[in-house]
């Protein structure tokens, strides 16, 4: 089944009289369980495409279908609900809430989804174990290293059991060792739980983890390793 189906989308940013065509007709299908890298030079539209897929923003034209649901014209609240239930995010910066502990950060999406305390506790501990941070549950983000924070972010993204996790340059702020650890964990979770990963990156070592590499240039797909293989 396809988790992501993007049909000929464009996204035009207008600032004053200047129009930037960040995406100029992108079509892409990603199947359940894929581990896909989105690459391309700076400004090629990787982040923009992830935002469309992640229901953070809406395309100027075209259609976006996530897990069978057309999300192209959802309103703000519907998009928030969609993100909460179906999509996890990992950002380049370590996007944790600074006032909450590692545990509470991971728990947040579960609270928003109305899980019982028992479900929450089990799920959070299971995830913190999976990212090898069970002993850091009660630390606040400022007491964690960058790599540890990013792993907490991965755990949080996975918490509501989303079909899809989107990561925008998840290793860009990490050193090689930490970057590799993060990639290993993502790969492992992808294999164990079958959750679909799409990540944007510049880093060749990160690209090497990907089963499929989609290359963007100037807002269009220049190359897709999946269609080449066929």
């Amino acid at each position, binding site marked *: 089944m396809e988790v992501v189906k993007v049909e000929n989308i464009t996204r035009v940013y207008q600032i004053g009289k200047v129009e930037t065509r960040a995406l100029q007709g992108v079509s892409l299908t990603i199947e359940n369980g894929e581990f896909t890298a989105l690459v391309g030079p700076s400004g090629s539209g990787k982040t923009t495409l992830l935002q469309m897929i992640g229901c*953070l*923003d809406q395309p100027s034209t075209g259609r976006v279908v996530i897990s069978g649901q057309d999300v192209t014209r959802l309103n703000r609240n519907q998009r928030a609900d969609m*993100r*909460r239930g179906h999509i996890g995010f990992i950002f380049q910066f370590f996007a944790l*809430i600074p006032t*909450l502990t590692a545990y509470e950060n991971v728990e947040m*999406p579960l609270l*928003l989804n109305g899980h019982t305390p028992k479900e929450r506790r089990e799920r959070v501990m299971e995830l913190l174990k999976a990212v090898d941070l069970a002993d850091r549950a009660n630390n606040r983000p400022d007491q964690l290293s960058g790599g540890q924070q990013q792993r907490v972010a991965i755990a949080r993204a996975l918490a509501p059991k989303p079909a899809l996790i989107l990561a925008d340059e998840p290793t860009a702020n990490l050193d090689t060792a930490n970057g590799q650890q993060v990639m290993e964990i993502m790969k492992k979770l992808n294999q164990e739980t079958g959750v679909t990963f799409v990540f944007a990156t510049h880093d060749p070592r990160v690209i090497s983890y990907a089963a499929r590499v989609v290359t963007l240039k100037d807002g269009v797909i220049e190359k897709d390793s999946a269609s080449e293989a066929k």
Partner: protein
Amino acid sequence: MLQIFKMAFRDLGRNRRRTFFSALAVAIGLALLMLMASVINGEMGNAIQSSILLQSGHIQVRSFSFDENKSSLKWEDLVANPDEIAAKVAAFPQVKAATPRLFASGFLSTGDESTGVKIYGIDPNSVANDPYRMGLLSGNFLTADDREGLLIGKPAADKLHLQVGDTVGLSVNTSNGDVQEQVFTVRGIYSTNTYAFDVSTILMPLAKAQAITQTENHASTIFILLKNETDTDSVVAALQGLNLDILTWRDMNQLIVEFETMANSYIAFFYLIILAITASVIVNTLIMSVYERTREIGILSAVGMRGSRILGLFLAESAFLAVGGVILGVILGWGGVQLFNINGFYIGNMGLSGFLVGDTIRAQLMLDDIVNLSVMTFIVTLLAGLYPAVTASRLEPVAALRAEK
């Protein structure tokens, strides 16, 4: 929901200094409001009460043609047989005291100084005149048959350098329009702590006042004090048969009542200013905090938090600020009132002329005011938090995530 409060609470803890000062701003605002309200309470209650005790009484009975401002002594402007009427009125069970008074005007002069005065002819034996008796600072009170003694208020005595036992010339306007002069002895110096009254009023026995003004067996008014203010209307009804003008303390203190109304609208204006300042501090704090946390709001939004919850988060923060500020404010306000009342606020002779205002203002804090002002401050603080909260809840996630912080 609980999580929201937890987050809001911790967010306030992030910048403790700022949180403290914003709560303090709310607290100081509320404390000022409380202090103002209680000073006004003290002052207004005081003004009406002293006017009733010293000047208007609860009820007065006068001739229909009597004009207070002229203090005319023509017989037709006066009440005839005042002792008889006073005795009749005093027999009512609701009445505490009823006593005739005669008002005249004149000049008091020593060797080189003189001053215009109001002369009160009073019955020294009536309890209605207790405020003067109690206020005696030196010397003795009047006796009914004294023919050359008078009491003088402290400020007037100071002005004319008079002491007990000194003699002083008094010229008085009489019933038929001429002026009578006589030398009097100062029997005592009194103070009612009400400058406007004390500086201009001298007291002498009614019989002597009648004699010198040639108004025998007449009085300007029958001054009536009730045991209970609420009996005013029933006593007025009972007095209708007298064929005389009956005035109540409400009629006679219209100026004060009007002043009170006017003061209240000024106060409302000051309230608004104080609340507006408080509100702007809160708006500022919360806008800062929204601005500093833009990216965080983006994260919350990305995780799927709806705008309404983000709104709730920021409103919860202002609610915490408001609660803290109000509690602190009630404490500060209460303390302020206590401090204020250690000495009171001495206004001396700043009281408006024609107005009986005690020379010391004391604040009187009422539970009503504490509750109302606290609720008002709380609501204003919440409302002030609304704008930043709405701003936060409307942030586009994409834009918010791109922010530096």
